[in-house]
């Protein structure tokens, strides 16, 4: 039994639902079923991922097929346009799609024919029966109630007949396909064909519009069936790189639905986050660690320091994937934070008379309107006279600093108190140097710093601090990704390498990459709080962490299950050669992981938006938690934009708003999307019904 089939086999048939449908069917002339994601379901996340399967298959046969998947998708769009414009046809056939294919890829007639055959073969291998529907059709046959299939589909009728038969369906009355009769469920015209017209029908399907609301307008009684439903993703260019996440995620989704009333399960969030760990997390973290192994070897790294708190999960994954190997690289977990590092390094770049520009930027950073007192509080250990001076400069003690507003004033305030701040930097410097000495950080021959990345500021500070003791100290950084500002820091950081994206990417790509960073930082985070200082106790430097009950609760509810999913999956991989969802080591490439990242954060499913937007994130060094997405739609459309700027995962935010928006709000959100998400491709914009 294949992995996917075994997942489906775990499904408990929804007997109540089957009985109810049977009862309703007794009063009808005919029961009709949608086919895809109702009677049969694919083992991929999105139907179009089958084209990626075809490309992969062709490439394995050494055919020049790079770009086939995207070309196949474009050929279908072109065929639809042509059928609509020239012949006023509602739907198309498989043959008509392939007529268009050579427009998008340099394929000969022979190659086109071969691709056609492989697509049918891939479809056949990817399709599996849905137990509730299969059982219902058996019951209908026993009760001599006629049933038919009605599907908006281009695949050949004979092919579908065979697939349905192979998957256990039998004795149906008609198989009605839009590509065949050129009428569709989407428009409703299919209900007027002679096989369906003037009949008392119960129709069952998973598409709310074409299976429910449209048929109702034609007097059809309908039943929504969402258990095998899938929500197509289009977060990146379609290629074989989407497959590891697509297949593993679909498997996990099927497992999540083992129980018929899965969505009301009180453990649903926990299970969904675990599933996300077993699919997305395994691809992402696993690919990073395998890359890290290769890069550490190439660069002769002798010790890896995984930085708190993002390095927590990475280090655990490192231990799993390097067990039973001959890797001699030692590793440690470094209790550091942007705060203790930058303030400690500030002692080296500033003087009692002058605070360096880098430090002024760091001290003044804030995301939203923030009170001056709060900006000072996060530094800690400040002389009370500093607060007095702040009150003099800023009219009210609780004066707010907004982005760019009052910023110059704030920097002037820091500068005029440079002597007092310098003392604070010195305190942080003493502590972190003590901690680094204890951790023997500058004694390693070739040290590698491991963190999630972005600007290189942590590595810059580590290097500056270690050079304070050992002037010829050097280290390398290994990261998920780097932003454009990282390149400006490179001279002071030393070499930095990134697995998934870098500062050299195009602007639009960077804007896409930023989308998921807040979520992914939280998903990797350690259970403990961030390091705010060090204290010398019992002969050792101990990190002082900021413990937050809110963060602890969030960890247990949402982060821990994700991390468990990742680590369980990687352990299965080491033990059995593959995860329960079938992921193998060869699937864990940086390219596949990057595609998984884009798929999840640029085209999340509704369920993912709902669960991920429950995560709160601390973006700045004070680590004050704020929601990743604010589910509340602002009262006035003119406020949408201002609220939107407060969040990095704008795709998630706007999708979250769309779930609950009224029709007029939807129009405003669509307008906002068009204006501000222009960096998304046409394909990616389809989730907003744009493009």
């Amino acid at each position: 039994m294949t992995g996917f089939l075994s997942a489906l086999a775990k499904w408990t048939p929804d007997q109540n639902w089957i009985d109810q449908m049977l009862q309703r069917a007794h009063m009808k002339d005919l029961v009709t079923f949608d086919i895809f994601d109702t009677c049969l379901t694919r083992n991929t996340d999105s139907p179009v991922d089958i084209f990626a399967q075809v490309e992969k298959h062709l490439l394995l046969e050494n055919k020049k097929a790079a770009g086939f998947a995207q070309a196949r998708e474009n050929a279908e769009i072109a065929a639809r346009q042509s059928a609509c414009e020239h012949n006023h046809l509602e739907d198309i056939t498989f043959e008509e799609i392939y007529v268009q294919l050579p427009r998008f890829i340099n394929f000969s007639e022979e190659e086109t024919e071969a691709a056609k055959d492989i697509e049918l073969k891939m479809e056949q291998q990817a399709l599996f029966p849905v137990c509730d529907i299969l059982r219902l059709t058996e019951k209908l046959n026993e009760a001599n109630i006629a049933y038919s299939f009605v599907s908006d589909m281009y695949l050949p009728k004979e092919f579908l007949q065979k697939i349905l038969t192979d998957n256990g369906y039998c004795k149906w009355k008609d198989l009605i396909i839009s590509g065949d009769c050129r009428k569709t469920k989407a428009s409703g015209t299919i209900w007027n064909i002679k096989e369906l017209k003037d009949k008392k029908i119960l129709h069952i399907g998973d598409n709310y519009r074409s299976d429910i609301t449209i048929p109702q307008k034609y007097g059809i009684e309908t039943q929504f069936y969402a258990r095998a439903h899938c929500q197509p993703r289009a977060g990146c260019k379609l290629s074989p790189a989407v497959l590891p996440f697509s297949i593993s995620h679909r498997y996990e989704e099927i497992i999540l639905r083992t129980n018929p009333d899965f969505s009301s399960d009180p453990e649903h969030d926990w299970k969904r986050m675990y599933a996300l760990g077993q699919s997305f997390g395994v691809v992402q973290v696993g690919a990073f660690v395998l890359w890290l192994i290769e890069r550490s070897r190439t660069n002769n790294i002798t010790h890896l320091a995984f930085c708190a708190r993002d390095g927590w999960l990475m280090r655990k994954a490192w231990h799993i994937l390097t067990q039973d190997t001959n890797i001699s690289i030692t590793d440690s977990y470094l209790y550091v934070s942007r705060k203790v590092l930058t303030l400690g390094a500030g002692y080296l770049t500033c003087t009692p008379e002058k605070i360096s520009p880098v430090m002024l930027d760091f001290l003044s950073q804030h995301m939203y309107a923030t009170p001056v007192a709060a900006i000072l509080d996060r530094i800690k250990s400040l002389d009370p006279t500093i607060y007095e001076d702040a009150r003099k400069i800023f009219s009210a003690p609780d004066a707010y600093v907004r982005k760019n507003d009052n910023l110059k004033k704030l920097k002037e305030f820091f500068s005029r108190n440079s002597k007092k701040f310098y003392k604070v930097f010195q305190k942080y410097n003493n502590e972190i140097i003590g901690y680094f000495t204890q951790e023997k950080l500058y004694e390693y021959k070739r040290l590698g710093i491991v963190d999630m990345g972005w600007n290189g500021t942590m590595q810059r500070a580590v290097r500056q601090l270690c050079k304070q003791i050992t002037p010829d100290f050097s280290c390398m950084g290994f990261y998920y990704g780097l932003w454009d500002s990282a390149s400006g820091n490179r001279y002071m950081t030393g070499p930095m390498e990134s697995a998934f994206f870098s500062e050299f990417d195009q602007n639009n790509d960077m804007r896409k990459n930023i989308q998921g960073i807040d979520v992914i930082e939280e998903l990797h985070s350690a259970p403990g709080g961030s390091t705010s200082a060090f204290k010398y106790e019992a002969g050792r430097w101990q990190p002082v962490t900021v413990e937050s009950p809110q963060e602890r609760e969030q960890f247990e509810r949402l982060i821990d299950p994700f991390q468990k999913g990742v680590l369980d999956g990687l352990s299965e991989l080491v033990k059995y050669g593959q995860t329960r969802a079938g992921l193998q080591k060869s699937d864990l490439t940086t390219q596949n992981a990057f595609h998984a990242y884009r798929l999840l954060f640029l085209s999340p499913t509704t369920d993912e938006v709902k669960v991920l937007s429950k995560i709160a994130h601390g973006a700045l060094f004070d680590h004050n938690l704020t929601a990743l997405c604010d589910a509340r739609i602002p009262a006035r459309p003119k406020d949408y934009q201002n609220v939107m700027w407060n969040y990095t995962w704008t795709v998630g935010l706007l999708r979250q708003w769309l779930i609950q928006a009224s029709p007029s709000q939807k129009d405003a959100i669509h307008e906002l999307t068009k204006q501000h998400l222009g960096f998304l491709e046409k394909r990616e914009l389809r989730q907003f019904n744009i493009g």
Partner: protein
Amino acid sequence: MISFFPNSMEGFTAVSDGECVAIIMRTCNRPVLLVRALASVLQQTHQNWHLYLVNNGGDKPTLENVLTDYRSAFGERLSVTHYETNHSMEAAANGALKQTKGDFVIIHDDGDTWHPSFLQKTTAFLNAPENHRYAAVTTNGETVYEQLEADRIIEKYRKGQFFFQQHISFSELLFTNNNIPPISFLIRKSVADAVGSFNVDLPILSDWDYILRVIQIGDIGTLDDVIARHHQRINENGIHDDMSAFREEQHGKYNVLYTNALIRAFLKSDPGTIGLLRLIMLKGDEKINALLQQNQIRFDELKTQIKRNSFFGKIKFELKRLKKKYLVK
């Protein structure tokens, strides 16, 4: 039968399907920029390359110290040449050109950067059978304006795209100097060998001269993908560094001298063709004058129309009419 087309890469059989790229990088005491350029090369998805780094008179220990951290990542793919004194950019490039091996050559100076897919896309382009007729390829790109602040680079803004053209026209290249920045220009090694060195007698415009020699061998393909970045350093007032102002002045001078040289080279084999040259220029001048005249007429018409149709123009016109009608009498 007389036939002119096609003749790009004619008689040029040395088109290979190899993938090794020789990268020439010139640097002189700019470690803050250099480390970024090294990272730009190391992050390429196409890893079959060799970097020929030319230390053009910069401090040797400083450079070697910077390189220490990167040696392991480069492995055998780095050759460094140290010049004791600062040579011209052309001479520094020529020194490296002589050493290069591989299938393609490109200059990636220490101030510029690439998108990680640059080499992958450009080598794939030139290796595609339908593109064997191209001697080189150039890509689209953008210009980044930045400031150097002690030990860090601060990006200020980016300017859209290069003066990218879908097709590189020989005549356009002759007319408008060179709009192809070296960072976006990958050339076949066989073509580079045939073209020879950069002209050390040209302290400026040598890139243009080089590209004109390339296009004499074969066409230059284009990739409309923003994958090359030319970086410009600006001061606090947003003005390019002093060296750029000096180059601007030199540019004008050498543009004239270079054009004179081209005409002399053209006339050398047959001095009598000077008459043909004069004829072409006169005809061109006539056409331009005719167009200018047409434009002037149209411009005057529009000016009158605007005058008449504006609010004050209408009043003025009406007053004139009334004056003529009643007062003149």
